[in-house]
């Protein structure tokens, strides 16, 4: 067992697990955050995408020992904090990307959605704009078998337009 401390969705966490355990398994099994999904388990589908120090990664390919001291963001950590949390309207508490996915029908079965949102968040945080080609490249590592991607790309473009993509 190895003690690994890191920052998860803004709060410090510590786990005692084998250092080679996949970050995905630590999130889902040890910490109970089931937003990141296991699709393929081999870095093809992006359903397990999370941000590590702001960079989008497949959490199925990361040893938890490798996030020691890092900042990890999962889909559970998206959304607005602060005063928005007191709003009576739940939509106010969501990340603008989540709102845009709702408005455009960017989610159907939902398996790819947490990973899509995270990859899109990395894209917007890096200053990405509404250009569809750039958005398609940014989510090229995330497979969706329902939407045909069009509505997802439209949703991300809308979020990029709104407030210059600044969300969480």
């Amino acid at each position: 067992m190895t003690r690994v401390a890191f920052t998860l969705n803004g709060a410090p966490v510590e786990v005692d697990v084998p250092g080679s355990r996949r970050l995905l398994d630590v999130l889902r099994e040890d910490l109970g955050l089931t937003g990141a999904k296991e699709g393929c388990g081999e870095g093809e589908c992006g359903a397990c995408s999370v941000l590590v120090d702001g960079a989008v990664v497949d959490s199925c390919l990361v040893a938890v020992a490798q996030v020691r001291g890092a900042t990890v963001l999962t889909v559970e950590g998206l959304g607005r904090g602060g005063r928005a949390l007191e709003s009576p309207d739940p939509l106010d508490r969501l990340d603008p990307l989540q709102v845009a996915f709702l408005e455009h029908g960017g989610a159907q079965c939902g398996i790819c959605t947490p990973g899509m949102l995270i990859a899109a968040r990395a894209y917007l945080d890096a200053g990405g704009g509404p250009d569809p080609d750039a958005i398609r490249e940014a989510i090229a590592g995330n497979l969706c078998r329902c939407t045909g991607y069009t509505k997802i790309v439209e949703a991300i473009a809308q979020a990029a337009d709104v407030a210059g993509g600044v969300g969480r």
Partner: protein
Amino acid sequence: MPPVVEPPLESPATLAEAFALLAENAGEAAPDPAASGAVTSGPWRPLAGGTDLYVQMTGELGPPPARLLDLWGLDELRGIRLDGGDLVLGALTTYTEIRRSPLVREHVPALAEAAATIGAAQIQNRGTIGGNAVNASPAGDTLPVLLATDAVLVAGGSRGERPIPAGAFWPAYRTTALAPDELLLAIRIPLAAREVRFRKVGTRRAQAISKVVLALAWRGGPAGASVPSGPWSDVRVALGSVAPTPIRAAGAEAVLEGAAPTPETADRAAEALAAELRPIDDVRSTADYRRTVAARVLHRLIREAGGW
């Protein structure tokens, strides 16, 4: 899906500590698969970004690693710099860092192009050029660029450092020239004022393993000029996914050496390449397709260079 194994893992804080652990590999026998209980010994397997190695943790692609030597914290193995006429990339340099590096884009833009074709953002943020070399896949997309630029791979361990030319680094299928107690530390690309071109053919633009990958390098007139440039020298034609290892194509190189990039030269070089390649049929493509496409890609790169 078979259970994911969780082998012992150490994260050395310094390169010296990593070398000391790796020294245990000298004379280490492979673990006995019949032994009961958890595997607690066996060779240390260096772990960089995990984009290839962690795919093997289910054991579906052969035995998973017995013990993992996590290199991710070793900043000594990071960074891109110029040194003595070489572009030097630390083994842990990620594809994202390569794509963004002004030094790479200025001196070896073909390497940045190759990095951009690998996986997508998730893979490029974790996958490293050292991992690409040590994984030793015949389809490793940066490897033809390393062959075409006469790159030197710097190995190191407790016994010291030694340079290994790219042409000698992959002696056989999925095998490297590294000793069991050596790590790949850095890759040195000589700035030889060569033009380098890169092309990858896969099923789609992202997340595809190559059917054919080709790098072409030469010294000579400027590329893309409106008239065919003068004769080429120091020509390198390097390919992936068409042989058990990344290879250079001696026949095509012989045609191109000393020749100008004319239509006639391109025809002869493409013919020579098609004649010398011995690709195989597998899940990703066929031998015929690979041979035909490799020849076409080479022809097109010569045409683009010749400006006709």
